[in-house]
């Protein structure tokens, strides 16, 4: 399964990079979200992945009795997901605002006229 995850994260990164190289602002945002997801999976892989053993202590015991999934990557990813949501939400309304102002989804339209002829 690890190999499949490796493939998935590689493709998530590739798609993310491809999208941030486009001119559309929405695609830029989608690209950033994909890069975030790819990074989450990369972090997830850094601790060895374990099936069906969540890092939750059994209700009858005070310490782990069995092996358990690494809790640190999970804590990191949880933070990352939440923060990336803040970013996404802000970016979405920002895009709406930009669209209302310049009436375009094209990043190049944000350039000032003087800079365009460089």
């Amino acid at each position, binding site marked *: 399964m690890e190999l499949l995850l490796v493939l998935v994260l590689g493709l998530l990164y590739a798609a993310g990079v491809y999208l941030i190289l486009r001119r559309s602002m929405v695609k830029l945002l989608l690209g950033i979200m994909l890069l975030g997801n790819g990074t989450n999976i990369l972090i997830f892989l850094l601790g060895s992945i374990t099936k069906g053993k969540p890092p939750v202590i059994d209700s009858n015991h005070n310490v782990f009795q069995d092996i358990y999934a690494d*809790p640190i990557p999970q804590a990191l990813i949880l933070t990352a997901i939440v923060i990336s949501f803040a970013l996404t939400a802000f970016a979405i309304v920002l895009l709406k605002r930009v669209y209302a102002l310049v009436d375009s989804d094209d990043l190049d339209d944000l350039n000032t006229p003087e800079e365009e002829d460089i």
Partner: protein
Amino acid sequence: MLFTILLGLISSILLIPFGKRFKSSWSILLPFVPTVLFIYYLGYIPKVASGLTYFQEINWVPSLGVNFNLKLDGLSLLFCLLITGIGTGIFFYARTYLKGHPYFDRFFGYLYLFMSAMLGLVLSDNILLLFIFWELTSISSFFLIGFNNDQEASRKSAMTALTITGMGGFFLLAGLILIGNVAGTFKISELIEYRDVILNHPQYPLILGLIFLGAFTKSAQFPFHFWLPGAMKAPTPVSAYLHSATMVKAGIYLLARFFPVLSGTDLWTYTLMGIGGFTMLYSAIHSLFRIDLKSILAFTTISALGMLVFLLGIGTKQAVIAASVFILVHALYKATLFLVTGIVDHETGTRDITRLSGLKKVLGPVALAAGLAALSSAGLPSTFGFIGKDLIYEATLHVESHWILILTVIAVATNICLVAAGFMAGFKPFIGSLPQEFEKLHLPYKSMWIPPLILGGLGLIFGLFPGFIGNYLSYQTANSIYAGDTEMHLAIWHGFNTVLILSLVTLAAGTFLYFINKPSAEKVGFIEKFEKISPQQIFTGYANDIVKFSERFTNFFHNGYLRSYHMKIILFAEGLLIYKLWQSGPIKIVFDNLTPLTIYEVAVVIILLGALLIVVSTPSRLTSVVAMSVIGYCICLMYVFYSAPDLAMTQFTIDTLSTVLFVLVLYKLPSFLNLASARERYRDSIVALGFGAILSIIALKVLYEPIKTETSDFYGENAYILAKGKNVVNLILADFRGIDTMFETVVLGIAALGVYSLLKLRLKSSEKE
């Protein structure tokens, strides 16, 4: 001593609030400061002449060895007297010269600043302090050269001068720090005790090279000489003061100051003899081709500076004596000639010697001053110049090697040219018939012609009584440079010997050269043809290339397109990562350690990849947003499979929210435009796939690495014991790292505020394009 430095600085600052008053009614006070300082330093002459050296120390940054150490010995005293004495004349002169100029107050502000900096430079006994004042002189020189800031040539010359001297200062700093590190002290008077350590240190050539670069740039030695003729764009009093009498001699001062510490090696001797000898001959010849008075004087100044470097290079007792006398000789006659040139320029409006003649009829005392200076520069017996020239020949004739002939010939040839150039500047404008256009001229205000007359007259007085100035001043100057007794006795008559013959030959040949050399505009044009290959062209060409390069560099990297920045960043990262991965060796995979595949997982991955393809390729915004949420849910499922229930819940919530927001807010936007060409898309996909591949390889490498679990174990074991909870991920976030999470919440709050205000903000009609 400290107060003498501060006095100038305070005066400079006082000109800011009281500038207007100093322009008119108070302007008579301006020359007061240098006069007081001059008298103060005159009082030191008898004490220093008896062999005393004065020290003053004020702690500044003792922990770094940077202290306000001041020292007054023979060498410093000579320079202090030059700075304040000639300064007094210049201040009187400039007050009249610049009367009514709109920047009158500013000019004197710079001049005060310069005077203080120069005094600080020659009084410093700490090499870092010396460096600070060194840079201050460069900066004040920059302002004074560019004083006529409405002229492009003036601004350009100021930039050139600052670039060259600033660059030299940079090298000098490196050299000074090195020498301080090698010797372990920053006090100049202590350095001499470490002479052997420094001379035998492997870094000695480097130290010497760096200090030479500093001295050569400041004192306009070849190939850095070209800033000095350019610096003549400054008002004439500045040229007289900074660019002939004092500041340009700072490089000489530096060499003289370090003479006891660094000299005596072949490297010292031959570099200085070579550079100085070449500079003095090169610019002496150049001066003969000029028709602009200031230009002639600029080149003869360079030549004289070359002579001083040359003498310090020879480094024998006689050479040191010659150098210490020649500094004074040259300062006196050259300042006079510059001041005279200023008067001529001021009165006639031209400095072209082919147009000037017969001015002695209208400018009598000025002609007298010029004549005295020209004779001193020519070295006529009974002038101070004669003694200077004698000593130079004495020095070249007493070199203990087979170099005697060459050195003497170079010195004689240079002096012949200088005699002719001195006559060109000091005699030519004043003799002959007076053209009609100049008949109505009258003598300027006496504060302009008295200073040059005094300076010129001193050349004669010192020449007639050389023993007087020799015993009281030059003897101790030479001793400070030589760091020993030089047994100097200046006398007007040395007997009938080789030196006298050489002096007379020089005078005769120089006079002959003056009569046969007829400077003209064509000759200037001829000599300027060579400037295509001159150092100046190389330097300016190089500077222009840097400007062009940085323009192209900036335009390439900062072209205003976000995707182009992304592209460059990603390509750079790819390059770096590929290099690093290449170094780290092949990938190893242990298949036994991998978790087995199940059908659900494969199905989820296939759905995810399909959705990914749709996100990348769909023309519809809504489709891409929905596909995006499919990807999110697939990842959520994977978290479920691999024992991360908290992540799965968070991902599910967040993904749903994002999709809702996306659809609600961006529903109105048009569908994607296809803006890129096929070629661009192929290029971008290759870059993107490359990046993905690199990240996959990194992940594979990570898989092979053993995992350290101490931290995880700590949390696992103490979750219940310390934090009284059973869900370890929750405990890490809410308890162990609780403060981090709190700040994360703050970030979310800020984002929420941003979202809210952006949504609530109403568009003004003017904002709409």
